């Protein structure tokens, strides 16, 4: 928390260079309109020269009343709204919500649909991770080159999403008990093609970035998140794994058909921005492995459980929590159904970006303004999910 700056607090010493000169602090409000806050997000920074001595994240500019909206409409009505949570990864958001509802209603999902969900969600993961690295490099001042390379590959995935679900980003693809549309054999071939060419892109991407000395100097030992803090602050996803926490919902819950697929979970040691960057690269490579298996093993069958009704879908009273390993971390939906069962009585989202964002000040203190933006970039927030 930043106290309002009083007369006595005006002068500080720069951490690190203990008290060479007493300097005046400068309060800078980075955001809500700023090129690298990834949306309408504000950081109230207190700077000493260039060094951050206090930082307060201010959220809520994109608050859309998501949870309350969901509580006044039918279960299915929230599905398109979950697209808009983390608008880069609508597929995995859909899955998390569908999973929660299926748990609550006791719906069994057909095998074929489970594989389709895995394919879509892993495609979403590589899409998200490559774009996040691109955004991060944009914050690092790489003039958009890595970002546009990532977008070039993302384009192919989005084309596939459009061909399958009808929309590029707001897919609204999953339904309770399966998915809305089946993938045709043509779509599967496209997916296979994407998966087979993605490693080549990753190699090029890494050649551009991983060894780059400027990037190493900018990223390593910046914004370290200690393992204990990561656990205490309930950090999840690549960020937690970069700090050395071995936590992946795909391995713990083995939801869907992840139990059957062979993949590894990369874990970092230091927990700095570079680890968060590289863990994402490694995760993309693992996702490719998952995709290859899923596309190979996908069985025939119905794409949606036939007993699930679209209209008048009711759930017996009870509560349930469904969670998945979204690209950004553990995305969970907590739902309560009461007597009527036509709509959720309580609907709560556990948004990974929001919870990962809470440690922002701890990571930024003592670093420079230039580091703040890449630390924020490495958290990988989407304001739609932070503010809901």
């Amino acid at each position: 928390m930043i106290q309002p700056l009083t007369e006595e607090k005006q002068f500080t010493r720069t951490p690190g260079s203990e008290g060479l000169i007493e300097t005046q602090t400068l309060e800078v409000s980075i955001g809500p309109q700023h090129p690298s806050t990834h949306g309408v997000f504000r950081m109230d920074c207190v700077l000493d020269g260039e060094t951050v001595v206090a930082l307060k994240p201010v959220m809520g500019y994109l608050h859309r009343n998501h949870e309350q909206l969901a509580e006044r409409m039918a279960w299915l009505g929230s599905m398109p709204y979950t697209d808009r949570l983390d608008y880069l990864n609508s597929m995995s958001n859909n899955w998390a919500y569908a999973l929660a509802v299926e748990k609550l209603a006791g719906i069994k999902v057909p095998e074929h649909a489970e594989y389709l969900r895995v394919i879509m969600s892993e495609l979403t993961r590589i899409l998200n991770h490559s774009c996040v690295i691109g955004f991060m490099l944009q914050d690092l001042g790489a003039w958009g080159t890595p970002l546009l390379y990532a977008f070039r590959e993302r384009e192919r995935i989005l084309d596939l999403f459009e061909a399958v679900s009808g929309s590029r980003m707001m897919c609204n693809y999953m339904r309770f008990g399966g998915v809305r549309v089946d993938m045709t054999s043509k779509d599967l071939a496209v997916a296979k093609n994407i998966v087979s060419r993605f490693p080549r892109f990753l190699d090029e991407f890494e050649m551009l970035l991983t060894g780059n000395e400027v990037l190493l100097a900018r990223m390593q030992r910046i914004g370290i998140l200690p393992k204990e803090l990561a656990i205490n602050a309930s950090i999840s996803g690549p960020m937690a794994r970069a700090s050395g926490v071995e936590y992946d919902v795909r391995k713990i819950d083995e939801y869907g058909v992840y139990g059957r697929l062979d993949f590894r979970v990369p874990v970092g040691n230091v927990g700095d921005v570079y680890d968060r960057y590289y863990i994402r690269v490694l995760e993309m490579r693992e996702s490719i492995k998952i995709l290859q298996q899923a596309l190979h093993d996908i069985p025939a069958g119905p794409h949606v459980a036939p007993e699930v009704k679209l209209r008048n879908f009711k759930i017996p009273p009870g509560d349930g929590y469904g969670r998945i390993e979204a690209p950004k971390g553990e995305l969970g939906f907590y739902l309560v159904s009461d007597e009527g069962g036509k709509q959720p009585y309580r609907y709560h989202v556990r948004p990974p970006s929001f919870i990962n964002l809470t440690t922002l000040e701890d990571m930024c203190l003592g670093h420079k303004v230039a580091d703040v933006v890449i630390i924020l970039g490495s958290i990988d927030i989407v304001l739609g999910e932070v503010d809901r």
Partner: protein
Amino acid sequence: MGFIGKGLLDGMVVTARNFVGSYFDKERLVTVQYPEERVQTPENSRTFPFLVYDDNKNPVDTMRCVACKICETECPPQCIYIVMDRDEKGKPRQRPKVFDIDTSVCMQCQICVEVCPFDAIKMDNDYEKSRYGRFDELVEHLPDLLKSNEYYGRIKPTEATVVDAKLKAEKEKKAKKAAPAGAKPPTGSKS
């Protein structure tokens, strides 16, 4: 690791490769020059809903919508507004007098299409719907929304074939029962 600066030079090799590649490799230069060239949208692609009618000569009478208001209730952002048409005596005519879709609110989720029992509302794939105004001009009224079944068949051939077959089967079933059509709306067939 090689020498200091190798990573920097590697990066420059990559960008040079992309620079040259963008002149020769279609895979690298994915940009489309929009007004001149257009990407073929996939069949499933969706933008805003429209209402299907069967007979080109008489769109209003042959529209499939019966103003049952299911889509109005199910629409998550509640962008649909329907008023049922009534004749002079106030008897419902089973077709909408007003059918408005506020496209500034519509989020193109396709739920109205899924819940419609009459296959009356379908998703368009026309993405060039810019307007000058922000409010009234973005509301689509019944005349704008009505589009023929041929149009539907043209933009979404696979889906339309299935729908047509289904409707035809229903019609034949009804004909077998030999019940008079009466006030029932005419069901679609490929006319």
